[in-house]
């Protein structure tokens, strides 16, 4: 019969109940292993923040048909991209009726609600959900990670594998020397507001029916010359409006993040979209956008790292939650295999890396591995190009008796005033290369 002390011994302990951690806990619990999911929030999700888009494929892997019962806001049928200058806007978008049908493609969510539901699923699968508990440190023995130290009385907990899903500034990964200090070029700081708005108004304004939703990604003027993008997402009875900018740029320009958001909200084009709304919540979050090259070590003796803590964000496609969930699930799979073999060594856990290599997670991150550095060198993409393109479009669409031939000349002048044609071609070529 097992010893009473064994009550505090688990097959796996997951630190952090975000998409990565909960996904991992769910996978491991479903296999019948004993797993604890430890989180600092008053309930899972209480402290979790993201822009607000969730991808069907990643959740579906854990819970088929989840959209029938999960607390989702809207399923996205339209995605728009806006290029803003100071007073005008070029937009392109895509809307598909296919996305209005089950199984849908993407959803907006409010994380406090969704994460709490998702953790409930892990709970039902058998995971021990331990909230309101801060993990202060990891316990190591002879270089192996064997447990965690929490802030609770008699707060040590032991497991064969510890999975660090403690978010972007994973102090635990840092304590273990799995990652170094942050480079502030690898971090974006995003601020967002939830703006209450009656459903009917949202549906009219965005041309939606029922629970259909739309997202708008915004480039150009809103980032005030910095490397960053804004967004507007539709929720059921609110909009998520926010902007994320590379931290190094904020440090350099000394622009305050909330001023940036305030100015974005006051942009004439955006003001129209949010008018009649009431700010309800304000939140800020750091996003690890360093990409493949900035990834920390993700496995060691008795330890795995997943989600934001492992830099698993595709900054270009604004994907994060799906990479997090997939990495969490694959970490779970690794633990199940390791438990079967009874081997939790670094060598055995390297299987996690192989599984990630085979999935879209590392394939995508590798494909864009040069992009973060490239974009850093070409912050003009966020300022000069949107501006000249808007000027060119203004000129093209203003009917003022100027001959078309003269118009073309003027447009060419606008386009090449700030950038030589040769430079534009060079930028385009280099960008193409950076996208892999």
């Amino acid at each position: 019969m097992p010893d009473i002390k064994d009550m505090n011994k688990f097959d796996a302990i997951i630190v952090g109940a975000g998409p990565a951690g909960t996904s991992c806990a769910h996978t491991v619990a479903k296999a019948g292993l004993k797993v604890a999911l430890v989180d600092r929030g008053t309930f899972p999700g209480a402290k979790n923040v993201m822009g607000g888009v969730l991808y069907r494929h990643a959740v579906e892997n854990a819970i088929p048909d989840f959209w029938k019962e999960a607390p989702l806001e809207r399923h996205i049928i339209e995605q728009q991209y806006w290029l803003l200058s100071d007073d005008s806007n070029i937009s392109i978008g895509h809307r598909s009726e296919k996305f209005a049908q089950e199984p849908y493609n993407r959803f907006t969510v409010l994380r406090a609600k969704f994460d709490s539901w998702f953790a409930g699923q892990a709970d039902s699968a058998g995971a021990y959900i331990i909230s309101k508990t801060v993990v202060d440190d990891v316990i190591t023995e002879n270089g192996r990670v064997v447990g965690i130290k929490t802030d609770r009385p008699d707060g040590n907990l032991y497991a064969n594998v510890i999975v660090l899903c403690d978010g972007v500034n994973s102090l635990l990964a840092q304590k273990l020397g799995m990652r170094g200090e942050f480079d502030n070029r690898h971090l974006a700081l995003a601020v967002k507001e939830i703006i209450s708005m009656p459903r009917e108004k949202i549906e009219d304004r965005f041309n939606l029916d029922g629970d259909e939703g739309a997202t708008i990604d915004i480039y150009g003027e809103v980032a005030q010359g910095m490397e960053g993008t804004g967004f507007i997402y539709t929720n059921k009875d609110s909009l998520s409006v926010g902007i994320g900018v590379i931290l190094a740029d904020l440090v350099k320009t000394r622009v305050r993040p909330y001023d940036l958001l305030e100015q974005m909200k006051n942009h004439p084009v955006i003001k129209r979209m949010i008018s009649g709304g009431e700010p309800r919540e304000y939140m800020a979050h750091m996003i690890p956008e360093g990409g493949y090259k900035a990834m920390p070590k993700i496995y060691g003796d008795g330890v795995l790292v997943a989600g934001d803590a492992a830099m698993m964000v595709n900054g270009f496609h604004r994907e994060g939650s799906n990479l997090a969930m997939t990495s969490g699930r694959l970490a779970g799979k690794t633990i199940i295999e390791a438990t079967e073999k009874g081997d939790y060594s670094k060598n055995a856990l390297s299987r996690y890396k192989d599984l990630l290599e085979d999935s879209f997670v590392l394939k995508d991150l590798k494909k864009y591995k040069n992009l973060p550095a490239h974009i850093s060198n070409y912050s003009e993409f966020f300022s000069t190009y949107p501006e000249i393109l808007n000027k060119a479009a203004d000129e093209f669409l203003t009917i003022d008796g100027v001959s078309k031939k003269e118009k073309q000349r003027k447009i060419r002048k606008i386009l090449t005033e700030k950038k030589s044609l040769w430079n534009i071609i060079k930028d385009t070529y280099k960008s193409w290369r950076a996208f892999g």
Partner: protein
Amino acid sequence: MIECNIDILKKDIANKRLDMHIVVCIKQVPDTTQARIDPKTNTLIREGMPTIVNPYDLHALEEGVRIKEEYGGKVTVLTMGPPQAKDAIREGISHGCDEGILLTDRAFAGSDTLATSYVLSEAIKRVDLDEKVDLVICGKQSIDGDTAQVGPGIAQRLDLSQLTYVIKVRSIDLKKNSMIVERQLEDGRQIVEARMPALMTVVKEINETRYSSLSNLIKAAKYEPAVWNQEVLGLDTTKIGLKGSPTTVRKIFAPPPREAGEIINNEGESSKEVAEKLLKLLIEKEVI
């Protein structure tokens, strides 16, 4: 496996001499710090509002566990509510209670304080049959109803010594079956000796709640309370739910917003002048 370990724990407890059996009654309430009132209907918007254990009841739990630790024995936590109130029981377990019972049935829904105290007292009778109850502890009132009637209602129905607004338990004499407590009154404290079994309702100042240990949290995470429904309890259906509740709520309204206070400036005036001005105002408003 974990079930096995809980069995061992139970056996451990059973082997000990159970000196006192304490029942703590708790209620799951909406987290009113996050409450919003619908401006049109003047009712509480309950949708999506997180629930918590009534804050006074946390102190009741704490006191129960402290008494157990001092005098030995066992704490049973009891709640009536929807199936989700299992979370409240689990919180009780994480605070150190030994067992939990959830009273849940559609037939109990809509119960006012009269009906609620009936259901709870019948359940306590049942607990008492299994294992004699010495002390029942409740919070002084709930933060959603604020009536402070359920505790006294249970005491009355079970003929327990009724100790309300207890701020301190001075001593318990198990041989004499008596306890001495301090009650908080508006103008002071009253020291009362009472026979046991007794029921006390506690104020927040009675103790500081502890930060639960990790092992209790783990125990609580998968704890499945005994669930007692109408079928198990077999209560008088005219005394429960809406039928058994003579109280009806006529109207709920948000209190008018507080008006801004008056600020007396001392610009260009001596302290004496300001003091006189203040005195005049206080007399005018009949404050003094």
